[in-house]
């Protein structure tokens, strides 16, 4: 079970400072929590931009290709019914549903990927047990240091100007 130390900060600035100190001390397994997204924090944590857009792209392409193939298979191959002399395989009308399905599957793909990547559909996390953690969705910022961080013992005073420091997930 995941364990670690959680520290609450009044605002983003103090959090950023703390992150820098903690990282100077060689700690790497960090995660922050806050009411708003912040590129500064990502920068401090040294994280790259998310690559979920790929999911959208793949999903979209698969959806579109599948839709066109299905239309051709059903309408032009399986039962090529004569409708007012229109040729069985008629790309122009096929394209409309193709495009729509591209959008649909792109959207669904990126959303599912989002749920997975964020490890959502998960109501409880050890850190939820930290008293006062709710402030993370209101106004405060939290820094969580993973319990199995090899450099945990070198933490020292890094978290001194935290509003509060608490361990989570059983023993620390």
């Amino acid at each position: 079970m995941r364990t670690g130390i959680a520290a609450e900060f009044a605002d983003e600035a103090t959090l950023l400072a703390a992150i820098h100190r903690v990282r100077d001390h060689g700690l790497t397994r960090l995660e922050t929590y806050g009411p708003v997204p912040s590129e500064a924090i990502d920068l401090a944590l040294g994280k790259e931009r998310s690559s979920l857009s790929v999911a959208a792209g793949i999903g979209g392409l698969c959806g579109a290709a599948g839709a066109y193939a299905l239309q051709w298979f059903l309408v032009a191959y399986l039962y090529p019914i004569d409708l007012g002399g229109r040729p069985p395989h008629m790309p122009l009308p096929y394209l409309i549903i193709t495009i729509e399905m591209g959008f649909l599957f792109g959207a669904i793909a990126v959303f599912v990927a989002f749920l997975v990547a964020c490890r959502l559909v998960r109501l409880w996390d050890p850190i939820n047990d930290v008293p006062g953690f709710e402030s993370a969705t209101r106004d405060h910022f939290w820094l969580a240091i993973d319990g199995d961080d090899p450099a945990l013992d070198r933490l020292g005073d890094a978290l001194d100007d935290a509003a509060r420091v608490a361990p989570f997930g059983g023993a620390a």
Partner: protein
Amino acid sequence: MKGDLHSLVPRVEVTRRAALKLLATGVAALETGCFERPGDREIVPYVQEPPELRPGVTTRYTGVLSLDGFGYGVIVDTHDGRPTKLDGNPAHPATLGGSLPWLQARILDLYDPQRSREPTMLGQPASWAAIAAQLRALPRGPLWIVMPPQTSPTIAALLARIAARHDLRVVTHAPLARTAVYRGHELVYGRPLEQQLDLARADVVVALDADLLGTGPMAAAWSRAFASRRKPEGGPRSMNRLWVAEPMQTPTGTLADERLPIAAGEIAALATLIAAEVGVALPASLGQTAQARLGERAASWARHVAADLVAHRGASAIIAGDRQPPVVHALARMIDHALGNPVVMTTPAVLDPLPTHGLDELASAANPGAVLVLDCDPLYTAPHLHLAGVLARSTFSLHAGLYANATTAACRGHIPLAHDLETWTDPRALDGTLAIGQPTIRPRFEVASIIDVLAELAGVTLDARTLVHDQLRGQAALDVFDTAWTTALRTGVVAGSAFRAETITPTWRSPATDALAALLAPPPANTVEVALAPSPALHDGRFAPNAWLQELPHPITKQTWGNAALMSRATASALGVSNEDLVRVRGPVGEAVLPALIVEGADDHAVTIELGHGQHGPAIAAGIGTDVYGLGDAMILRATVSKAGGTRVVPRTQIYMAEHGREIAPLVTLAAYQRDPKLAAHLRGDQASLLPQGGDRFKGVQWGMTIDTSICSGCSACMVACQAENNVPTVGPEDVAKGRAMHWIRIDRYIEEERVVNEPMLCQHCENAPCEYVCPVNATDHSPDGLNEQVYNRCVGTRFCANNCPYKVRRFNWFAYEHEDSRSLQYNPDVTVRSRGVMEKCTYCVQRIRGAEHRAIVDHRAIQPGEVVTACQAACPTGAIQFGMLDEHDTAFATMRASRRRFEALHDLGTRPRTQYLVKVTNPKEGA
């Protein structure tokens, strides 16, 4: 074919009916692709297989229908013992294979749940046996029989035998009887005679207030003969000329080359003038009075007619309408005589052409004794005589009718009358030809035919079949006669039974002069002419219970479910009324209030109202339209018409009758067509298209239809035929008014000024059909033989196809219209009965096409030209509708398809319709 069907109990019908029911209730489960489980249905085979009946195979019998005594030979299609469809019998002189709306619709009466179902006596259920006993036991003494004109020799014989037992007084009563014709002929020939027209020989036809192609005992046959002379492509004499003078436009009027709107009361004057012009020896004074009475237009019209007649001596025909007074008919014959036309006069087919007893006699009879009213409704058709009184005074009174009507209530007894297809009859056609009517189904309840009733009165114990058989047999030896009898039944006519022509010439006598002088006297001031007319659908009202006929759009006004005061635009504005405003008509006897309807081409001095509406029952006829029998006891009345205030909806299937600048129904004169035969070229042929055209899309047999608008009179027989063949429902006045009529074929009528075109409009079976590609579920698509297919069981009812059909021939089942009562017995088992929520439309009678294909496969042969005949084509009396294979040769269809008059409706849309039309060509007289 064997005649007597009584041994054949249609057992398979059980499963058929169950099947139809099952479908009619639209079992969704079936359609979603669920299955019927084994054992859900039964198979009920015969105990003994009837010799001539095979399950699911159409068997045809000959039959005869009677109307006002005259016989109309028909072919009866039966499915598993159920008659489902009627068509004219090509061998019978009155139809020559053609149909009239009522003829097609009679099949529905057979299964009509409104029919009276049991004999009653004094309001109590009785049995035919009991009533028959009473008839046999009638005391000798006065016996009145009121019935329509009869032509049957069997009936004649029976009447003779009755006369021997009783003080018999036969009152021949029919509002539309042709008595005036016989009286007229009596005036000039000395005795009542019938004229036998041969329109095929006439170069000039003059119709004086006569709808000879629309109504009357020979309408179908005459239409065919007339149409045979309307072929612009033929030689110089291939196209006759039709002059029509009439107060209201009729089907005949729509085909007129020269038409004169004129009050029916003025026709006498017109005829007089024509007669004078062609040299009939009349007192000069008459000519002047006529001249004086007619307007300038009418007078000059008459002179043109006369000139044309003289120019075609010996090759013309003058026909006066049945409702015209006798002397006009006398004049017509004198004109014929003066022109040396080959007039064929015969003895009339009706038993007493000049009724010896009138209804009024009966009405005033102090103690009438026994009164029998057979197959008519005098209380409704002659209200001014108040016959209820005399019926009450009678010692015995019986009404025999298909339905319980106004007269039934006034009589003590009532016996359901047998439908023509339920009994044996032997009526004559107008030309005297005998036809033997055989029953094609066992009556579903206790009925008696007129012959049965008369037989009881005559004390004869033989059944109708024996009576008819023996009557025809006469003294002939049985073995000899048998073949004759069988032939008569198989062909539907008794060979050589037509009357011989009399050699007799007309002479003008003084009574005629007096009658004419009286007619030419000026009409009473401040009155307007109200001309009563037969309803093209309901005749004199006897067909009012028939939903098909009630919902049949009027050929001219397109009105359904009711009648109206038909008047010209000028008359209407003079009265200060417009369409659907109520007007009050005060006739010499009674008055009536009904909606006004403006008709282009009506005369400004006459209001026309059709008879047969406003009955008190049965169910669907009740309260539909307005009864005008009470206005007076003549067909042409002087009356006062005034605005009544208020309106009544007139359900019409077509409201806009102008072309609005679109080239939809072209019309040219013969001269113009001969000058420029290519004048339709721009209305047919290919259009530029982005879609691949032709290719190998259409392989093998290709179907198509061509309709000649030159000879379509708009009679609408095709509409009813289609309804009968394809299980097309009726929807009732409210839905018709909403625009929900279901007819698969309709007759579009375009009229601007004098130019009228009847354009039958049905599915055009476009090769590039706009309806097909918009259907999301492939419920309508195209077959390799060029049919636009409609798959009811696949249809979800988006109605996109209807929106996208520029011809607007698609029909939608807004409600569950299908019958579940006895009318479902009439359903054609080869056509799906559509349930609620699906689209339907003309299929080119695909069931007949596929049926023919199957027969061809079974016989290992190809389909023959003319093998497939659509219902509308079969019904069309003029042969305006022709259907066939595009690669046919030397058939009527091929000839029409090859015509240079051929055009495609809405050609510019590039739909490439398979149904195509021929431009209407008229043959007006130069300078007229």
